[in-house]
């Protein structure tokens, strides 16, 4: 008899027996995974291994073939989630001002106008917003648009926040700013964050755990913990511990590529 695979304590997301194939090709076969609560987990792996697919299946954007995904024992429908897309230009609603973009999910939940305003003000303060939120997304810079996306994803106080390559379309200055803000938000709210990244440095820098995936059919190669104190500033990119974890991650990655 197969032993029941109970989740570890302090688990937010439990994945059991997940199967997924595309056009007859197996991507995932019987994947079991626990993702910790209130932590930042980066998903990293070779091209085409299905990093984004895994995240999108958890977020309910791609159907799974078989298996179960639970959030603290609840289904997706019972869980509040936030999602930040790689392409902020396509994710924001250009017919609404930045302010109304952030307020939209709250209004649709039936929140009163005064409360909506309070929440948006709270977020602007947290993100130290210096630009005019009454402008339309296409009038803002890329970094400002992505900031608005993150604020919108956080507006509903999600339990889990998904970020799909949030830095890949941003310049370095903006990447540093958003890294700072994400850490700050995570500390303040304790939201569980799941980040997909194709950049090793980005993947390691923010993470409490780096989930390393193999080539397809995809398995978990290793879960690398990274415990450097927070908040991590840009200077910590030369910290010996960061360099050690990055080197180790790279080693595992290269080993998986070679197989």
């Amino acid at each position, binding site marked *: 008899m197969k032993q029941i695979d109970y989740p570890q304590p302090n688990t937010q997301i439990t994945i059991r027996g997940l199967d997924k194939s595309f056009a007859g090709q197996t991507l995932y076969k019987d994947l079991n995974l626990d993702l910790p609560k209130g932590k930042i987990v980066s998903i990293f792996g070779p091209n085409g291994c299905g990093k984004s697919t895994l995240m999108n299946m958890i977020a309910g954007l791609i159907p799974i073939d078989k298996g179960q995904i639970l959030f603290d024992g609840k289904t997706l429908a019972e869980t509040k989630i*936030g999602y930040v*897309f790689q*392409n902020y230009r*396509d994710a924001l*609603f*250009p*017919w609404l001002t930045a302010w109304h973009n952030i307020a939209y999910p709250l209004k*649709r939940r039936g929140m009163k106008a005064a409360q909506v305003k309070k929440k948006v003000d709270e977020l602007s303060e947290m993100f130290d917003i210096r630009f005019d939120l009454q402008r339309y997304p*296409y009038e803002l810079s890329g970094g400002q648009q992505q900031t608005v996306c993150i604020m919108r994803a956080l507006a509903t106080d999600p339990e889990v926040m*998904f970020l799909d390559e949030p830095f890949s379309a941003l310049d370095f200055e903006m990447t540093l700013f958003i890294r700072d803000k994400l850490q700050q938000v995570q500390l303040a709210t304790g939201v569980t964050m799941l980040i997909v990244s194709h950049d090793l440095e980005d993947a390691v820098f923010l993470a409490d755990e780096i989930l390393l995936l193999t080539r397809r059919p995809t398995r978990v190669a290793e879960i690398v913990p990274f415990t450097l104190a927070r908040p991590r500033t840009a200077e910590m990119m030369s910290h010996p511990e960061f360099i050690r974890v990055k080197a180790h991650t790279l080693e595992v990655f290269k080993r998986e590529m070679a197989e």
Partner: protein
Amino acid sequence: MRQTWTRRLLPFIGPILLYLLWETAVSAKWLNPVLLPSPGETLGYLFKALSDGSMNQDIGATFYRTIMAFIVAAIIGVPLGVVLGSSESLYRSVEFLVDFFRSTPSSALIPLFMLIFGITDTNKIAIAAFAAVLVILFNSAYGVMNAKKTRIMAAQVMGISRWHIFKDIMLMESLPQTFVGLRTGVSMALVIVIVAEMFIGAETGLGHRIIDAQQLFNIKDMYASILVTGAFGYLLNVVFLLIEKRCVHWSGKA
């Protein structure tokens, strides 16, 4: 400064060249002067006709028919297009019909419409509305179908209901393309109204006036009426562009 001045004057070069060419053609007698009056005379006649109001009835009739046809077409075309566009399989099942009738010159259907509606105003409005409705429908449907998937997914993860995704996201996403359809549709309606006025026993309208002037050999009136028709079509386009700019300020920017 000088450069901006020259730039502002650029749009006038074309019309001035046409005026000079026309003038030369008349004074050099390239064409029989009976068939082509000078531009000065024609414009003089046009302004006289506009100021003494003798053209007003015809302009009014054409305007009324075009706008009525357009309104009918928009009321049917936009909602139907949006509904068809929201279901890919629904659209695919009627795609052939839409494309077939969109490719059929509407003027070919004038005799058929005469059988159904008789020689009435309704007939002219109906045939012009038919011509416009398919363009409008087609554009609205494609606007919805080409809605950015990311925006729909963004709404999905927010837990927005299907009806609100349709109303708040897909409908708004389709607007830029819908406006292209409306603009093309109104031009189409004007074309068909003018043709219908020429050949479906009309008593009024610019189309009727043009063919009447030709029959009576009132050449100046014919040219003046043609110019008014052109100006009318041009103004319709400008007005629609202005409305579009206000209603879909994000068009082409996002």
